[in-house]
C-alpha cells in the first residue's frame, strides 16, 4: 500500500479532507452535514494519513491524544447546556446570540453549534483512537 503516489498525495488529501470536514460540520445546521458526518470524514482523513505516513506522524500532527479529544468533545457538548441554566430553560435548549463582527454584520453563535462541534470531537477522537491503536504494531 505504501506506494510513492499515495505517500506524496496523502498529506495534501488529508488536509483537504479536514477542511471539507469542517465545512460539512459548520454548514450542517442548514444543509446536509453536521458534527457526526464531519467527524467521520475527519476520521477517514486520519486513517488515510496513518496508512500512508505511519501512526507516529499522525500522533505528532494531532498533538493531543485522540481519547483526550473525544473526552473534550463530550465535555464541550455537555457544557453547551450550561447557558440553559442561566436562562432558566430546560437543559440543552437552543440559545442564540448575535455577535457583532464590527462591520455591521452579525455572526450567529448558538449552543447547538457548540454542541455539534462537541459531537465532531467525539467522533474524530473515538474512531481515530481505535484506528491508530489497531494500526500500531505491538
Amino acid at each position: 500500500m505504501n506506494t510513492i503516489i499515495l505517500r506524496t498525495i496523502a498529506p495534501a488529501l488529508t488536509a483537504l479532507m479536514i477542511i471539507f470536514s469542517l465545512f460539512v460540520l459548520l454548514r450542517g445546521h442548514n444543509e446536509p452535514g453536521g458534527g457526526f458526518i464531519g467527524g467521520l470524514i475527519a476520521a477517514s482523513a486520519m486513517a488515510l494519513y496513518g496508512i500512508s505516513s505511519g501512526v507516529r506522524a499522525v500522533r505528532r500532527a494531532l498533538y493531543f491524544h485522540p481519547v483526550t479529544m473525544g473526552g473534550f468533545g463530550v465535555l464541550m457538548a455537555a457544557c453547551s447546556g450550561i447557558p440553559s441554566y442561566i436562562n432558566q430553560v430546560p437543559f440543552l435548549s437552543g440559545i442564540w446570540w448575535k455577535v457583532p463582527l464590527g462591520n455591521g454584520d452579525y455572526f450567529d453563535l448558538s449552543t447547538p453549534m457548540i454542541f455539534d462541534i462537541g459531537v465532531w470531537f467525539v467522533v474524530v477522537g473515538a474512531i481515530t483512537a481505535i484506528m491508530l491503536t489497531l494500526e500500531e504494531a505491538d
Partner: protein
Amino acid sequence: MLLAVLSGFILALFAPLLKRFLGYRAGWLLAILPASIFVYFLGQYDQVMAEHAIFEYHPWIPSLGLNLTFYLDGISLLFALLISGIGTFIMIYSGGYLKGHVHLGRFFAFMLMFMASMLGVVLSSNLMAIFIFWELTSVTSFLLIGFDHLRQASRRAALQALLVTGLGGLAMLAGFVLLGASIGNFEMADILSFGDVIKDSDLYLPILILILLGAFTKSAQFPFHFWLPNAMEAPTPVSAFLHSATMVKAGIYLMMRTYPILGDTVEWSLILGIFGGFTLLAGTFIAIRQTDLKQMLAYTTMASLGLLTMLLGAGGEGAVEGAVLYLLAHSLFKGGLFMVAGTIYHEAGTLDITKLGGLRKKMPITFFAALIAALSMGGIIPLVGFIAKESMYHALLHGDPLSFILLIVAIMGNAMMFAIGFAVALKPMLGKLGDMPKQAHEGGIMLWIGPLTLGICGLAAGLGIAYLGHTIVHSAVSAIGNENAGTELHLWGGINAPLMLSLLTMGLGGIIYYFYDKARAFADAVLNWIGWGPNKGFDQFLTLLLRIAEIITNTFQTGHLKTYMRNTFILLALVIWVPMIAYDALPDIDFASLTKPTFYEAGILLIAVLGLYAVLVAKSRLTSIVSLGILGFAVAILFMLFGAPDLSFTQFMVETLTAVILALVMTRLKLDKSDAKYGMEAIVATIVAVAVGSGFAALLLRVMQTELDMSLSDYFTKYSAAIAHGHNIVNVILVDFRALDTLGEISVVMTTGVVILALIKLKPKNHKHESQKGKNKLKETAS
C-alpha cells in the same frame, strides 16, 4: 424540619476536617448537632399536641410526585427525640471509643449521615422519600458495619446486612407503590386519613406482606434476623446506635406508622403475633448460648424487636401503649448496655463473659450504668422497663385466646431477658478478677457519660411516668391508635394481676440466672442438634446464585465470536418472524401498483447484487470485506436518489471506515486469510442469513403498508426553522430538539472507544483474540 434532617448530611462533609483539627475531641463538638436537633424537636412538642401533627412541604422533583414532605406527629416525634437524644451521647462515645483511630473522621461522617437518614425515615410523609431515606440507612449501616474493612468477617457482615435489608427495602417499595396506587396518593399523611379503605381492598394482603417484608428484614425478625448478630462486627458505638437503639427500630416504626391503615386484622395479628413471638423466643434462647457480651446483647435486641412486633400484632390500645413504652425503655437500656460492653472491651480487651470478672472496683461508674440498665431490662421497679412490662401484661391479659398465648410467650421471653440482662451487667463486674488481656481501669468521661445518662433517663422516665403518660407517650399512642388513648400510667398500680405476672417473670429469670451455665450448655446442645440456621442458608443461597450465574455465563459467553454472532442473528430472526406470523401480519404487497424502477435505479440495484455475489464467492476475507463495501455504496446511492442526503453521506463514510477498520483488525489479530465454511456449518450459516435478511425485507415491506403517523414530521418541519433556526431538520433534531439523546449517544461512543482501546492494548493471554474481535465487530455495527 428540613434543616433538622439535612444538617446531618451537611455536617458529615466537615466532620473529617473537624477531626483533623480537634482529634477525638471533635466528638464533643459534633454532639452539639444532635443535641440541638433534640432541643428543636422538644420545642415542637406543644404544637404537635395542639394540632395533632405538623406538616411541612418542600418540592424536590414535583414532576415525579417526589417531595420532601415532613409529618411530625406523636410517633415521629418520639422517634426523632430518641434518635437525636441517643445520637448526642453516641457522638461523644464514638470519640472516646475510637480515640486514635486513623479513620475516626470518616466514622463521624458516616454516623452523622446515618442519623440524618434515620430522621428522614421517621419524619418523611412522602412514600418515595421514606423509601429513599430507608435505603440510605441501609447504605450507611453497610459502611459502618464494614468500617473495619480489612477484616473479611466485617466485609461479609456488611454485605449480608446490605443484601437482606436492601431486598426487604425493595419489597417495601413494591408495597408502597401498590399502596399509593390503590389510594391514588403517595403522601402518608393523606393515606392515613383513609382508614379502613385499604383493609377492604383486594390488594390488602399483597400490600401487607410486601410492607412487612421491609419491616421484618430491617427489624431482624425471624427468619431474616441473622444479619443483626453478624452486624456486631461493627465498632460498638455503631452497635449501640444503629443495631439496637435506632435503625433496627425503623421496621417497628413502619409497622406503627401503618397500624391505622393496615393493622388490627386477622392477617395482621397472625403474621405479627407468630413471627414476633417466635423471634422473641428464638432470640432469647440463642442469646443464652452466647459467651460474647455483644452477641448476647445482639440476640436480646432481636428478641426485643420480636416482642415489639408481637405487641403490635396483638393490637388494641393497651398493647400499642405497651409497645411504645417498651420501645422507649429498650432504646435507653440497650443503648446503654451496648456502650457498657464497648467500654469493657476498650478497657479489658475482651468481650468473653467467661474471662471477665471483678471489674466493679476498677470501673465503678460503668458498673453503676450497667446495673441501672440491667434493672430496666429486667423490668424492676422503679425503672421504665418495669412499667413497660406491666403495661404489656395488662393489655395481653384482657384479650382473646391468641393474646393469652402471646402472654405466655412474653413471660418466657422476659424471664430469659431478665437473666441475660443481669448476666451482661453483673458477670463481668462481680466475683473475682478475671483473666483479661488488659489491665482494666475506668474509661474516660467520653466513655461513661453516655451509658450513665441513658441509665438515669431510664430511671427518671420510670419515676416520672405519670407525666410522660400524659404527654409524649400519650401523643405517640394516639398517633398510632388514631384515637384518644385514655389509660393513666402509674409507677405503682397496686397489687394486681400484672404485678403477679411480673413477679413470676422475675422469679423465673432469677432461676435461669442462678443456673446460667447449665442453661447455656442446654441451649448450646439444642442449637448444635438443629445445626442449620438462616445464616448458613444465606451462604448457601449466595453460593447457589453464583453457581447459576456461572452456568448461564458459560452457556452464552463461550468466547467464540462465531457463537455470539450466530446466537444474536438467530434471536434476531425469531424476533422478526415470530410476531409477524403469530399476529398474521405478513406483508401484502400489490406488486402491480408499484412504479417501475428507472434504468439507473435498476443499474444501482444490479451493482448491489453483484457486490453481494462477490461477498459470497470471495476466496479471502479481505475481498469479501471490500465487496461488502460495494453493496454498502450502492445502498448509499439509493438513499441519495430517494432524498436522504444525510443518511447517504453517513453511509458512505461508515462503509469506508468499516472496510478500513475491518482490514486493520484482520491484520492485527492475524486471522486466517480465508473464511470458507463447509458442510453443516455452511448450511446453518445460510439458513440464518436468509432468515434474517428476508425477515428484515418483510418487516420493512410491512412497515410501508401501515399508515404513517406524520405528526412528528409535521412538527419538526414546521418548527425546525422557526424555533431552532435551522433548515436541515435531521441536524436540528440531533443537536437541538433531541440534544439530550445525542449527548447520551456520544458518551456511549466515547466509552466504547475507551473500552476497545483497553481491549486492544490488553496483552492477550491465551485465547482472548476472538472476544476482542467481537467487540470491534460490535462497534462496527453500532457506528
